[in-house]
């Protein structure tokens, strides 16, 4: 009666675990598998330098990659269902722009506030808060507009417009800020998975988990919304509450990810579509964990490529995701002629 997806789930989990190990073993210096395993069990004070690299650099980076990939994929899925538009995603709808604006205001605007406040504003935590607030505000704005205009294309255009407004504000701010601040903002914009220490990974994981819990709670609402809002209402769904739940989940996920790892393009849009190629269903109970696995896997692959194995170069992760993500979306469009969701 129902298609069973147990096998793809097992295969994907195995791939994820393998890629996780591969990702950790790759880097500017090669580290043997034995060292990797031993580093997990060695006391912090007795670490060799290679083990130290694993424990304090590569492991948090790999975990960040998983959180970023899965989180962006899930927020893309949520947006596509909420707006019933296959082109929706945290990037297209301007949520990422909102986060960027928040971060730009903090980094570039810190000179305006000056003094003690500036030192406070430049901590990682203030970036996180600014990015989350920024993305939440934009999403709220998009939602208010979407309740007035019923045309979903208009909402996407509004999202894009917000992107240009952000770009404009950022260029005004950068005109007044120092070269150092500008550099900091530009580097943030490249995206990076490797800048996080353990305490940051912990906070990231906590907020991410809250976002995932909200997503899981919206599964039923998401499935009902597949019929459109009028039908969903006739099925007794509290539309406002479900919408809010979905928005909070998305802004928590997309907001913190952008805050900790920078604006990562295309993953949010592409992952749900890639997932639907394997899991041919619209049921979010299946799609949500599947998107989680695909997002994590693809992000680990992107990170491994960005690492340029055995070299000292580290390419900007944002460039890699776009290089992989954009052709995937084009390929899907050409293959199916239209995107169904």
């Amino acid at each position: 009666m129902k298609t069973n997806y147990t096998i793809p789930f097992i295969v994907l989990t195995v791939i994820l675990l393998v890629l996780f190990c591969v990702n950790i073993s790759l880097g500017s210096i090669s580290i043997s598998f034995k060292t990797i395993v031993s580093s997990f069990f060695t006391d912090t004070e007795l670490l060799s330098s290679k083990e130290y690299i694993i424990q304090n650099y590569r492991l948090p980076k790999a975990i960040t990659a998983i959180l970023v990939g899965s989180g962006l994929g899930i927020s893309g899925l949520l947006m596509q269902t909420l707006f019933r538009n296959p082109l929706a995603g945290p990037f297209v709808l301007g949520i990422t722009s909102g986060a960027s604006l928040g971060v730009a205001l903090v980094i570039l605007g810190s000179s305006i506030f000056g003094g003690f406040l500036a030192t406070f504003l430049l901590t990682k935590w203030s970036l996180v808060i600014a990015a989350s607030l920024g993305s939440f505000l934009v999403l709220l704005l998009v939602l208010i507009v979407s309740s007035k205009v019923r045309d979903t294309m208009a909402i996407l255009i509004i999202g894009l417009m917000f992107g240009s407004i952000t770009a404009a504000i950022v260029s005004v701010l950068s005109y007044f800020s120092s070269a150092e601040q500008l550099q900091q903002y530009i580097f943030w914009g490249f995206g990076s998975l490797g800048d996080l220490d353990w305490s940051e990974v912990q906070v990231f994981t906590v907020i991410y988990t809250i976002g995932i819990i909200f997503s899981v709670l919206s599964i039923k609402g998401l499935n009902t919304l597949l019929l459109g809002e009028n039908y969903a209402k006739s099925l007794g769904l509290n539309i406002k509450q479900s919408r809010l739940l979905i928005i909070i989940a998305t802004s928590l996920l997309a907001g913190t990810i952008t805050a900790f790892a920078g604006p990562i393009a295309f993953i949010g849009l592409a992952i749900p579509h890639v997932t639907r190629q394997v899991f041919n269903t619209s049921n979010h109970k299946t799609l949500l964990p599947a998107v989680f696995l695909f997002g994590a896997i693809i992000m680990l692959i992107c990170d491994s490529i960005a690492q340029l194995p055995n070299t000292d170069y580290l390419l900007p992760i944002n460039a890699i995701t776009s290089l992989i993500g954009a052709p995937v979306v084009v390929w899907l469009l050409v293959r199916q002629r239209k995107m169904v969701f």
Partner: protein
Amino acid sequence: MPEHIKHTILKTENLTIGYTSKKEDTIVASNITIALKKGELVGLVGGNGIGKSTLLKTLTKVQSPINGAVFINEKQLKTFSNLELAKTLSLVLTEPIAAKNLTVFELVALGRQPYTNWVGNLSDKDLEIINKAIDQTTIADLKHKKCFELSDGQLQKVMIARALAQDTDLIILDEPTSHLDMYHKAYILKLLQKLAKDTGKTILFSSHEIDLAIQLCDSMIVMSEQGIVSDTPCNLIEKGAFSKLFPEDMIVFDEKTGSFRVKK
């Protein structure tokens, strides 16, 4: 079911429908008193722009009445919670469903949403009701097809199955026969007649297929400039309700055949 215990599912009292805006109330129709009985197939007919949609929207709590009240099972409509209403009244709308990638089974299963737990798991009882709805609408062979693979006629049957799976006393359909060819128009309305009889549900639909509705409905609601009348099709023909439906210089109602003729 014996005639005397057929009770009223939906009734309206002195209902005035229309739109309220800040400036003024636009009244579409007033003094509407209708009563739908259990197991009846009721057709709502009237010309374009006469207010059929407004009436249906008012009866389904999409918009509130300007005056008067709607009662479902003796309970005033405005006191229903969303979930309560979802267990009493199911809809088939004219708007297309948003996600055409759903399979027929998944779509029908969504009708069980008001009854399922927080992730929407289907119990054995849910599955039983879904499969019954699929059998009653003869769509078992389409069960695993995607909605975008279906013809309009097939999709309409699936939407009716979804409404059946919602297991409500009352099903309201907004123009279920538009976009369909003549065969499927008759097929869908005949299916509705059979479902009303077999399941004891009250089915109300709006339609422009007046001649088909006259042949198949237990009672009809006719909306015209002169007001709203509700009765059995035969009585309505006797009263001449249909001849007032459209301007008589173009088409006339032939009482003998129960259909309209274009004036030559």
